[in-house]
């Protein structure tokens, strides 16, 4: 075993192995990606249940969370661009919830210190629905919503 790694493992102090290895600067990105996946949160079928599964309750409506470059109408529900910017101080995580999807939670992003609390990605929408940007900041939950209409384009999509 590599001496640096052995050194890191010896330090103990109650950290998980993953954290120890990360601290030693030896964490390969594939291993970092082998993080836990919150299955229960991805199985929920309502906005309230999803918020609970993510550890929150009754999120406060916030004008400090905005959807940018996110169109009101998606020509096709298979690819809907969603960009969220959170100006809530100390944002720790941003989650995208799609109310009328078979499962509400689309994605959760953990924002480490130093990373802009802003995310751009693309999601699938089964039908016209409210899309919620759920933000966790200082352990509290905040939310903003936007309705996105989903259409079928011209000739049979």
């Amino acid at each position, binding site marked *: 075993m590599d001496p640096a790694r052995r050194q890191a493992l010896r330090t103990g102090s109650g950290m998980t192995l993953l954290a120890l290895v990360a601290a030693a600067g030896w964490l390969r990105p594939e291993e970092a990606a082998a993080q836990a996946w919150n299955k229960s949160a991805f199985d929920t079928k309502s906005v309230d249940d999803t918020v609970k599964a993510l550890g929150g309750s009754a999120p406060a409506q916030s004008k400090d969370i905005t959807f940018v470059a996110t169109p009101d109408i*998606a*020509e096709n529900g298979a690819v809907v661009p969603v960009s969220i910017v959170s100006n809530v101080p100390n944002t720790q995580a941003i989650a995208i919830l799609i109310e009328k999807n078979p499962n509400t939670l689309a994605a959760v992003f953990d924002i480490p210190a130093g990373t802009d609390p802003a995310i751009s990605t693309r999601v699938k929408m089964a039908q016209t629905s409210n899309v919620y940007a759920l933000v966790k900041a200082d352990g509290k939950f905040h939310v903003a919503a936007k309705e996105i209409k989903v259409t*079928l384009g011209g000739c049979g*999509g």
Partner: protein
Amino acid sequence: MTAPMMRVAAAIAAVGAVVTFGAALAQDRTADEIAKYREALQDGNPAELYEARGEEMWKAPRGPNKVAFTACDLGQGPGVVKGAYVQLPRYFPDANRVQDLESRLVWCMVHQQGYTEAEATKQPFGNGSKRSDLEALVAYVVGQSRGMPMNVSLDRPQMKDMYALGEKMFFFRGGTHDFACSTCHGDDGKRIRLQDLPNLTTRHGAQKAYTTWPAYRVSQGELRTFEWRLNDCFRQQRFPELAYDSDAAIALTTYLAYNANGAAYDGPGIKR
């Protein structure tokens, strides 16, 4: 008309004008939002993933003869990809045929790499895990013409013939619904639901339409080539299937590509 009747008529006309105006306004807003959607998609085009795969495929020896596409002449010399797409279709003496990009790639697969025609055209259009090598190769080649002006030449008699055939096909009504391409694409201002239909008989319409294909079709989850677009139009018109690598497909492509001459090629694009 009596005076009261005229007043009623005027009132109806006024209401009609407001309703029309309101509907037009709503339609404009919708069009604006759709334009925003299309713009938001431009930021990250999965076509690039196909281009990367295609580039690797282009350089790798393949087939029974283990020959790479670097031996394939797309009209600018063996292996020359830059600027090749904007001069296609063209007549190739070695094949004695006018060929578009897809049929030329198939020709190289058969005559240089040693595949049979059936093997080469087994999967022209990808479907999820069933990938199409041709789609990736097409994405790579067209990407290498990005920004260059369309420059299809009808100098050769074979090209003139193909253009004339394509034009005839464009206006030919057939199938169960008596459709022609021109039914949807022969006039300005037509649309199907939210999809504006380009007028392909005008230079401007043909340029706008042709220069953004091939494209990653979001609704298909795949990069779609120009022969796919034609094949799907035939399907939607309830025509018999447009055969891949057929003279029919090449003729229509010749007609539309030449009509697009002068415009900067802007593909591979991304569409709904």
